[in-house]
């Protein structure tokens, strides 16, 4: 190997880096290799680049710290419970429809057969809170947003304002009592945006809005009456904000 000094016209560091990463077009690669063979300085550079590559490959693995493991497990458990509450709710709705629990009465026959009573005879049955306004029959339709299972997710954007920069998220409408919030909040991750009164499926209901880990999504939980600490959850959904 020659000890001739590296000429100013020789390949620079970027070219040598590209050479070591097989990024040069064939003509440039041939020229660079021919130079490197005759230039001790450039051979040293290539060796240094190789050495750097192997030092990177041999960096020790890093383990996720226990506190981060715990935090992420909790966040995923919270996410999973949203899904399972939603599934439970759907199962319960189906069961209620099947058994007619939401209606005035139900007769379960001894043989396991079920007499489905007619929905719509909506009196204050045992399972339904007798609190005023809950079933909406007596309260006049107001300026409450009128929503149902299909329109709920799409309505979120229109109801929740803010969120640009540091601007907090907030809700249009009249704040309702918030006794129920703790019981419908899932995990400790999501923050309450607010509670508003809506019509849902033709009845007066309260909609509780939370942030989610996705800044573009809000979670909405429809309950029968948010002035109760343990309300019935009617629906859980998410919508773009």
């Amino acid at each position: 190997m020659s000890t001739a000094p590296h000429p100013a016209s020789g390949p620079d560091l970027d070219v040598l880096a590209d050479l070591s990463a097989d990024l040069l077009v064939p003509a440039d690669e041939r020229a660079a290799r021919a130079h490197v063979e005759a230039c001790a300085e450039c051979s040293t550079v290539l060796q240094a680049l190789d050495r750097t590559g192997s030092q990177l490959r041999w960096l020790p693995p890093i383990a996720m710290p226990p506190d981060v493991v715990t935090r992420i497990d909790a966040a995923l458990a919270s996410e999973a419970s949203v899904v399972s509450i939603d599934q439970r709710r759907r199962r319960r709705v189906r069961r209620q429809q099947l058994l007619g629990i939401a209606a005035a009465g139900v007769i379960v026959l001894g043989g396991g057969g079920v007499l489905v009573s007619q929905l719509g005879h909506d009196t204050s049955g045992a399972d339904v809170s007798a609190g005023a306004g809950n079933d909406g029959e007596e309260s006049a339709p107001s300026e409450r947003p009128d929503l149902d299972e299909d329109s709920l997710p799409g309505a979120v954007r229109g109801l929740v304002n803010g969120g640009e920069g540091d601007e907090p998220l907030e809700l249009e409408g009249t704040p309702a009592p918030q006794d129920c919030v703790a019981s419908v909040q899932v995990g400790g991750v999501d923050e309450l945006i607010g509670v508003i009164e809506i019509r849902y499926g033709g009845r007066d209901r309260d909609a509780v809005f939370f942030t989610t880990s996705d800044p573009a999504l809000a979670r909405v939980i429809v309950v029968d009456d948010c002035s109760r600490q343990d309300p019935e959850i009617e629906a859980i959904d998410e919508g773009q904000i």
Partner: protein
Amino acid sequence: MAASRPAGAGGTSSALGTASDDALLAAHVNGNSDAFNELVRRHRDRLWAVALRTTRNPEDAADAVQEALISAFRNAGSFRGQSAVTTWLHRIVVNACLDLARRRAARPSVALREEESFQPADPRDRIAERELGIAVEEALGRLPIDQRAAIVLVDVQGFPVADAAEALGVPIGTIKSRCARGRARLACSLGHLRDR
């Protein structure tokens, strides 16, 4: 009959433990409540390493990994198997890191306590190796984030260039070039080269 069943709950978890990543993701989509946890358990250290080395900040890394895993949890049904599950997970994590870095760009960066943050998984690593590792980690931290993310995936985590390209959403040539230029800078800041 009964004897042919796996014994107790242990049967389930060991079945998950040997399932492929694809099978776990499919099981999660089909409602198995343990499958996603197993997937996370399997990959969390590597995802953490990528996030910490890319963001250079343990809090940002934790935010990015959490955000990414929740997104993966929710959107698992949209995974179509064009890439390996692990590539898909890394892509979501790296993108969460890059998003965070962009949002944090205006904020002065928090100096990393290298000794605390980059605790090797194996405490038996020798001191000299640790010191060299810390020097490399520090040098890595001074790279521009695009070069750093490419080097972390390809050189540190050993991803094939094509997978890293997919994870970062750029052409293969771009990844190769980011790695090459990044190595050159690292070689300089590690003192392997006289200034050129």
